[in-house]
């Protein structure tokens, strides 16, 4: 990690030396990511007292899981289905991707509980609630297409189970079949994640603009 002094932030209060003096070198180094580019200008450096609780980290950890899913997903897509279905390393990476998806929903639900229980959806923050809800609902769709894009027996069965239940309905115009593995993989890798990313960025921007909601 580069020495924080070399890329000091504008405020002396948040400088490396000030932070070392405040709470020691270890913590100052560990938190450097929030004070250096590219995050230095994005993150607020202080938070309300009441938000110093792990409950308020759940949204951030959900985003972290999204980052893990993206990174592992890029690797999986690069090396392809034969690799992730047959190579031990590929199978392990696919396993990590699978568990990160479980964790994504786990932390997202905890975040949802925190937001609801503290009334953080009230007033103008409803728009943020709307975007978060869209992330949850679209995330469930991404989960389904991830299952379809796995390429194993369960992908085959769920493709037909969901096809016969849902996608043969006339309002889908018969243009898409989950039985087509190529379409499933493209939707899972290149369509839904891009929309999810845009929604998450919108959600984070609103949180940045509106700040942490005071518990009601």
């Amino acid at each position, binding site marked *: 990690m580069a020495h924080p002094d070399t890329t000091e932030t504008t405020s002396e209060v948040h400088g490396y030396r000030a932070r070392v003096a405040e709470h020691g070198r270890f913590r100052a180094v560990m938190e450097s990511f929030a004070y250096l580019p590219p995050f230095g200008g994005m993150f607020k450096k202080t938070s309300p007292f009441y938000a110093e609780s792990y409950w308020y980290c759940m949204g951030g*950890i959900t985003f972290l899981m999204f980052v893990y899913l993206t990174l592992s997903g890029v690797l999986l897509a690069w090396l392809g289905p034969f690799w992730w279905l047959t190579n031990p390393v590929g199978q392990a990476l696919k396993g990590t991707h699978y568990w990160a998806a*479980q964790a994504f929903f786990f932390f997202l*639900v905890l975040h949802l509980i925190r937001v609801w229980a503290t009334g953080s959806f009230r007033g103008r923050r409803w728009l943020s609630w709307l975007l978060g809800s869209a992330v949850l609902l679209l995330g469930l769709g991404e989960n389904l297409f991830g299952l379809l894009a796995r390429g194993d027996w369960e992908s085959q069965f769920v493709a037909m189970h969901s096809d016969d239940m849902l996608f043969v309905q006339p309002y889908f115009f018969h243009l898409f079949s989950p039985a087509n593995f190529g379409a499933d993989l493209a939707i899972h890798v290149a369509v839904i994640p891009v929309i999810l990313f845009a929604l998450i960025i919108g959600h984070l921007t609103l949180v940045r603009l509106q700040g942490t909601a005071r518990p009601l």
Partner: protein
Amino acid sequence: MSETAPGQPATPHAAQAVRQPAAEPGAAGLVTQHVRHAYWKYPIIALVLAVLLGLLGALAGSPNSPRATIATTSRQDPGGAALAFTQELAGASASAGNQQEFGLGPPGQVFVTGPLSSFAPLLGGNVAAALAAWRAAPASQQAAWANNYLMALDKITPASMEGGMETAMSPDYAKIGTLRGDFGPVPALVKADVRLAQGGHLEQYLEARDPGHTLHLSTIWLYDHPKLLNDAVANGLTDDQWGMVKERDYPVGPWYLIIPAIIHVKLPGGVTGTGFVLWNLLVALIFIFVLPLVPGIRSLPRKLRLSRGIARYPTPGEQIPPDPNARLDPVLQKELKEEGLA
């Protein structure tokens, strides 16, 4: 992730100020409400989670059941393959529901007459003649032949097990030569297609027929064969609508309960695609509009004082003065005033 409320100034040396009593002089009211955010914990949390995910991925793995292929399925259960081909010719297969899908077409043509035409010179025997007879017959005659054969197949099909599982039994292929009736060329077509399927040639044909199907046609055919659904039933994957979220050998976590809470409802008319879509739309509307906007419902967390178990409150000896700069947005102020909660 925590952020500062709007209008809050950055707080010099906020961490030191946290434990100062409320009576401290100066601008204590401005600085003690906010503390330096504990960003140093985030890399540790990220590392712990990365290690945990890596261990789970390597040791617990993820669902990875071997794919079904047309060849193995047809070799394991040739009677089911014969049943599927006959249903396709009769227009009574599951794939008839997919007929309108882009790139598909009549299942009898896609899965039976199409591949047989392509392989006829290699198959020899009476296949070319059977195909010619089939094509020369009017549609009503084709349907009569195929339906007669379907009924005959039913006579060599074992009765389904007691208990009402929604499984389809396959005809006994060893007895298929004993069937007699007005079947036209159907038996010859079906038996030749079973040979193609068992040899793996049908799958090759379906993948190579047009570029871009990418298992599309193969998977649709596998659902015509009873084995795919029977295996799913045997693994408990089809009870009602659980198939979407259940994983073979991998019980899903309780956090997925939100999914059955949304989709697992038996509608009066049974499970239909339209009912499924409308029900999910209704749940989404409740979630997005009713829960956060309807007076009374939106105030539930406040009335139940749920935030007491979530937000951090001062420990004994830790006095945090009220934040004079904490302002509620005008919309929320109005709502709270209307509800007498301001």
